[in-house]
């Protein structure tokens, strides 16, 4: 070995890193969402495909435009915008007009993310901001449901999908009537009356019902969540807290009065709860970082969901529950800051 000076690089410690990156997390979330998206395309056909594509493209384009306008480095490459777009698409009904989807994507990124300073600073889940905006802006379109597994779904769109921008979507009544599988009513299980008797939890579990594009198949969402969990990219406590509290609270209510309140299994598997609990509430940016905070956060989501579903006028409450929990996340974090080592008031005394 020669004694000539070695070219030494100066880097700060630590010199080893855990092999996990933000990029990889986002990429894996996108990968985990892929089966959900594929199932929805299988169930709802061409409309779902277009819907998901437009949502994703709209989000990515907005992200790109925002970066251009604000002179920041382009952050499209971190996959977060694509994930947001995909999530937004999965929460919308399959018949949703594409121009509204594009609006939703732009709002998600613009209002939900860029305004706060981009990835990492957003207070609310961007996809849900977009979804809530669409819900408030186009209340009819966002609650118009179509049945899954309609014949010919891969060749033709649901008529309202291709509505002309800024104009009312074409009614889907005829489409639903033509589909007419099992005297289908066009409502999601949560909208049906006497829910407990009409919807079989197994159907909900397997995704045989109508609903938002990506929320119908609970088992698939669970499996995809499991994938993320195995890869250590999902905080298991959040789905556990959300689903557990929904199950417990609705279970108690069901025991008290089985006629008014649907059973806990139905509550857990219906609507967007599974998708919300596994893919949206777990958004790291908008959930607390403290252990106790995570539990408070997730139980809060579960409780608000049940309250809105059973006591409010809206059939579905997951989205609002998550947004509200997002809003109080800073408070939860502030109040659950861990006790710093060695600062206990309890005697850290000798034996």
């Amino acid at each position, binding site marked *: 070995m020669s004694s000539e000076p070695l070219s030494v690089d100066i880097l700060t410690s630590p010199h080893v890193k855990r092999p996990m990156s933000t990029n990889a997390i986002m990429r894996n979330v996108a990968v985990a969402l892929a089966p959900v998206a594929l199932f929805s395309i299988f169930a709802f056909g061409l409309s779902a495909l277009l819907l998901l594509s437009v949502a994703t493209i709209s989000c990515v384009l907005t992200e790109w435009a925002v970066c251009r306008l604000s002179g920041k480095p382009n952050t499209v490459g971190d996959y977060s915008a694509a994930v947001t777009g995909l999530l937004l698409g999965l929460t919308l009904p399959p018949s949703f007009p594409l121009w509204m989807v594009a609006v939703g994507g732009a709002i998600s990124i613009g*209002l939900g993310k860029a305004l706060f300073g981009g990835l990492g*600073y957003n207070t609310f889940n961007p996809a849900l901001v977009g979804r809530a905006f669409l819900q408030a802006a186009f209340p009819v379109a966002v609650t118009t449901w179509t049945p899954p597994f309609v014949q010919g779904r891969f060749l033709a769109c649901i008529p309202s999908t291709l509505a002309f921008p800024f104009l009312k979507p074409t009614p889907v009544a005829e489409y639903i009537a033509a589909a007419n599988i099992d005297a289908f009513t066009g409502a999601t299980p949560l909208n049906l009356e006497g829910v407990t008797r009409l919807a079989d939890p197994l159907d909900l579990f397997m995704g045989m019902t109508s609903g938002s594009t990506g929320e119908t198949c609970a088992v698939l969402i669970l499996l995809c969540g499991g994938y993320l969990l195995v890869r250590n990219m999902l905080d298991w406590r959040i789905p556990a807290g959300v689903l557990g509290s929904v199950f417990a609270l609705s279970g108690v209510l069901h025991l008290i009065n089985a006629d008014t309140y649907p059973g806990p299994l139905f509550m857990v598997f219906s609507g967007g709860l599974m998708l919300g609990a596994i893919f949206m509430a777990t958004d790291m940016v908008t959930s607390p970082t403290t252990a106790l905070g995570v539990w408070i956060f997730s139980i809060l989501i579960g409780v608000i969901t049940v309250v809105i579903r059973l006591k*409010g006028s*809206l059939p579905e409450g997951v989205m609002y529950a998550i947004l509200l929990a997002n*809003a109080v996340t*800073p408070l939860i974090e*502030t109040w659950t800051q861990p006790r710093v080592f060695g600062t206990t008031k309890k005697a850290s005394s000798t034996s």
Partner: protein
Amino acid sequence: MSGGTDDTLSFLILNTLLVNNFVLAQFLGICPFIGVSNKIETASRMGVAVIFVMLVSSALAYGINIVLVAADAEYLRLIAYIAVIASTVQLVEMFIKKTSPALFKALGIYLPLITTNCAVLGVAKLQTSEGYSFIQCIVFALGSGLGFTLALVIMAGIRQKLDLADVPGLAKGTAIILMIAGVLSMAFMGFAGLGS
């Protein structure tokens, strides 16, 4: 006439706190909502002060309204209410100064601001037009005050976090607060129909 008189107390609380939140759905008390929501601590203190003043002035306004109606001098209502609120704030200030100097120090600077908080006058005005009973008035004032505080503290939490974020320069200040308030308002829409 209005259906207000048979509003149950739980409905009143839920309605003013969540469904028709004073700040986020009724646009009352926007100025303090924007002005005093920069720190969680100050926000919660302001909230407590407002709840207190609302309760007292609501009770007083109830009494005064009875007198005014009896004297057939309803046209003096507005002047009477604003006078009541201003003096309530003064009295509360003096009272707290005497009884708890610590609390006075904490609330001191916020108390005079409450006089021009339209949420307080709004409570008095709305309870009269809805024709609430005394108990309903108190619950209504309590719910409104809690609702105001809830919105204020949530906003303070978000803003405290936002201090560490790279908010685009142009949106800094009131613009982003309003945008966040808009998102909050959207989120609170989820409570529609609660309590009815």
